[in-house]
């Protein structure tokens, strides 16, 4: 049985004006468990708090009810008061008789009656309160960044600069991501490589950063502050630490007809390759599906020409286990497949290309060494049609496209159009669009330059069909403003393909128990106030894995994620919220229902041996809640049929007691 003290605050006349505080204090005296009840002008004042402290000592109180303003106002205050007097802070409950009583009711009798009932409900609850202690867990001061594009690079650099070790896991042989493939960047038209590659070098040289390239995350266990991650380092058959990246092996490799992924298959590479000149790490990689030595055991030329002796055909996949305190997801995006968009003849003509392919065609390091030549016959195209929103904002074609706006296409298309007109003023450039969206600093100015200075022909309307005919592409389109059909003989058609999250994101989200939206973009903890955190504690979001983003936005989000990570890693211990879910294992069915509603992935299952009611022993699957991860929403408690799951601080029995007290 509790020994409860009730403290009714007047709040000057704020409460006492409409509530007869003496009557309330008197009425609550006879409630079960109440051994002391009083009222005072300002309970939150030092003098008021002293009354509470003294009463705790004098009457050996175990529980406190303060009838005062909203708990959102002073719950923390009174909890501290209680703790200072030696009782558990969670033994305090507040009856809100100001905001929810005296301030909204005018009549003294009504206000008093309601205040008494609210007080009774608080007393009923405190009778069932139990002391709660927030759990503590240590923090591993190391971060993992999954994905080595500009998002991952920026996040890693910022965390590393704050003094914490960071590992980057990148599936490709080099970091750099999509940005490394770009030519120029909007709206400033500076070259992507010129601003990206120094950052890549910074990463390589930063003592706090390790790069696991050509690697992927195999398994993630644990929780915020304490993740156990297994990284699979795929065999690249080149000793990374020895290879100097001289490229001798690449030159001599006889297998030279392998489609070059970096140039999106528009030219070839060798079986042993370095994706591009500024790759980081600048280390060769052997493609096991292409290498004769690995496939048939014949060749071995690269090994012979490697003066460093870095080639190792026997290399195996390596598994690295590491502990991390925080994980940043920066898995990025990909353009969607154009296979299903037959109307644009992407599969039929080499001269229908995606915007990313166009980037490579205009890039000095690309397959055409920066000359704009169309892929089919390497001739200079004189008429180019850009088609916007291919697969974006595509509510009606959900099976092949995306409902959302891909956000970056308007701007890069403006950039492409402008660059073409700048370099090749004899080229006619059409851009077909639904809307032109340019919300960003200097974005609209940029777009207007394309139209006004560079004479790009923007047509509001969509391309209906592209038909290859001879060496031309017949483009059928509608001009919605002029309300007429257009027929254009184009030499090159560029499709602004929608972007989608990288395919690796979904399995990764499962491993992280991080939630995703229906488009497989990671969900933020709060769309406005916590945009770089996943609802799963300790997991942060950087870049386009959270939604379509351009480079400036990605970089700012990457730094924001880094600052959140730093804020976490700087702590030695994490103190949790003690009002978390906790299962009664004896009643748990192990049915996974609670796990399915938990937005935080706080619930896992364990097989444990139990003595059953009939004294037989059985191994049962039972839920385990990680208090460091649980945020205490209580969704699981209602999902749980057997009532095995309860929420500390808001136990079913406590809420029922409140209901009963109110309905008495």
């Amino acid at each position, binding site marked *: 049985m509790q020994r409860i003290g009730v403290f009714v605050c007047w709040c000057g006349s704020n409460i006492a004006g409409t509530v007869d505080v003496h009557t309330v204090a008197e009425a609550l005296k006879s409630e079960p468990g109440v051994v002391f009840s009083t009222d005072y002008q300002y309970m939150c004042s030092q003098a008021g708090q002293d009354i509470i402290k003294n009463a705790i000592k004098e009457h050996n109180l175990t529980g406190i009810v303060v009838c005062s303003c*909203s*708990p*959102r*106002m002073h719950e923390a205050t009174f909890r501290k008061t209680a703790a200072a007097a030696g009782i558990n802070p969670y033994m305090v409950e507040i009856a*809100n008789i*100001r*905001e*929810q*009583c005296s*301030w*909204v*009711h*005018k*009549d003294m009798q*009504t*206000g008093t*009656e*309601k205040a008494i*009932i*609210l007080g009774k*409900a608080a007393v009923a609850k405190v009778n069932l309160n139990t002391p709660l202690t927030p759990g503590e867990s240590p923090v591993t001061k190391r971060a993992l960044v999954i994905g080595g594009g500009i998002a991952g690079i920026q996040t890693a650099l910022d965390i590393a600069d704050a003094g914490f070790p960071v590992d980057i896991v990148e599936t490709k042989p080099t970091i750099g991501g999509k940005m490394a493939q770009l030519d120029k960047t909007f709206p400033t038209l500076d070259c992507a490589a010129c601003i990206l590659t120094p950052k890549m070098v910074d990463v390589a040289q930063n003592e706090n950063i390790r790069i696991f390239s050509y690697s992927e995350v195999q398994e993630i266990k644990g929780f915020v502050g304490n993740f156990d991650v297994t990284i699979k380092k795929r065999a690249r058959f080149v000793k990374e630490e020895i290879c100097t990246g001289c490229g001798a092996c690449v030159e001599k490799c006889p297998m030279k007809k392998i489609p070059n992924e970096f140039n999106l298959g528009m030219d070839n590479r060798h079986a042993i390759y370095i994706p591009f000149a500024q790759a980081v790490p600048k280390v060769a990689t052997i493609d096991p599906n292409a290498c004769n030595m690995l496939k048939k055991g014949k060749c071995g030329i690269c090994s012979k020409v490697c003066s460093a002796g870095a080639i190792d055909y026997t290399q195996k996949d390596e598994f690295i286990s590491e502990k991390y305190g925080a994980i940043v997801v920066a898995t990025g995006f990909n353009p969607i497949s154009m296979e299903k968009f037959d109307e644009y003849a992407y599969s039929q003509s080499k001269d229908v290309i995606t915007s990313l392919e166009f980037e490579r065609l205009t890039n000095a390091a690309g397959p055409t060494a920066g000359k704009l030549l169309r892929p089919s016959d390497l001739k200079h195209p004189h008429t180019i049609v850009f088609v916007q929103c291919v697969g974006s904002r595509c509510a009606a074609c959900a099976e092949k496209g995306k409902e959302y706006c891909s956000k970056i296409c308007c701007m890069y298309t403006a950039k492409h159009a402008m660059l073409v007109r700048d370099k090749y003023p004899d080229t006619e450039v059409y851009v077909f669009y639904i809307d032109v969206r340019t919300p960003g600093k200097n974005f609209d100015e940029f777009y207007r330059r394309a139209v006004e200075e560079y004479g790009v022909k923007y047509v509001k309307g969509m391309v209906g069909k592209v038909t290859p005919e001879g060496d031309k592409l017949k483009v059928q389109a509608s001009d919605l403003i002029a309300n007429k059909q257009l027929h254009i003989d184009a030499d090159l058609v560029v499709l602004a393909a929608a972007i989608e999250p990288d395919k690796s994101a979904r399995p990764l989200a499962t491993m992280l128990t991080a*939630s995703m939206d229906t488009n497989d973009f990671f*969900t933020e*903890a*709060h*769309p406005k106030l916590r945009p770089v955190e996943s*609802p799963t504690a300790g997991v942060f979001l950087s870049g386009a894995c959270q939604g379509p983003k351009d480079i400036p936005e990605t970089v700012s989000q990457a730094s924001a994620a880094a600052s959140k990570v730093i804020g976490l890693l700087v702590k030695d211990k994490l103190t949790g919220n003690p*009002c978390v879910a906790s299962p009664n294992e004896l009643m748990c069915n192990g049915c996974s229902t609670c796990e399915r*509603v938990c*937005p935080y992935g706080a619930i896992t299952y364990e097989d444990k041996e139990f003595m059953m009611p009939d004294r037989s022993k059985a191994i049962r699957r039972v839920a385990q809640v990680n208090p460091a991860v649980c*945020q*205490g*929403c*209580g*969704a699981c*408690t*209602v*999902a749980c049929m057997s009532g095995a799951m309860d*929420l500390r601080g*808001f136990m*079913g029995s406590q*809420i*029922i007691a*409140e*209901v*009963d007290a*109110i*309905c*008495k």
Partner: protein
Amino acid sequence: MQVNEYKPLIVAFCCNWCSYAGADLAGNNRLAYPADVKIIRVPCSCRVNPMFILRAFQRGADGVIICGCHPGDCHYTSGNYYTRRRMALLFSMLDYLGIERERTRLEWVSAAEGAKFAATMNDFVEKVTALGENKRLEDLRCKR
């Protein structure tokens, strides 16, 4: 001797982050609503078990209202979405059993919507008052 006019008993479950704060704001702005409404604070509307609602009716409540954050604004990202499904089904079932529809309600009230909170409560109390005492889901033992 006072006129014994019928006063309903209303239990309101409010989520801590939005609706309870909305109720506080109604107080801050002195937006009156009937004292028949008694608020129980829960961390999230998804903490409200249908059993609590039935319990309130058993003990003599004439109306039960659950208030949570607007869809998309849940402090816990998804709690109110579960609440919405649970309550839609529960309310539909109560209706199927012949319990008056207006006795239960689910409302989204944000921390900024003090006025909406007060208006919602005024409206709910009015509707329940018109229905009169809860006879169909009561436990007579609790009324003697």
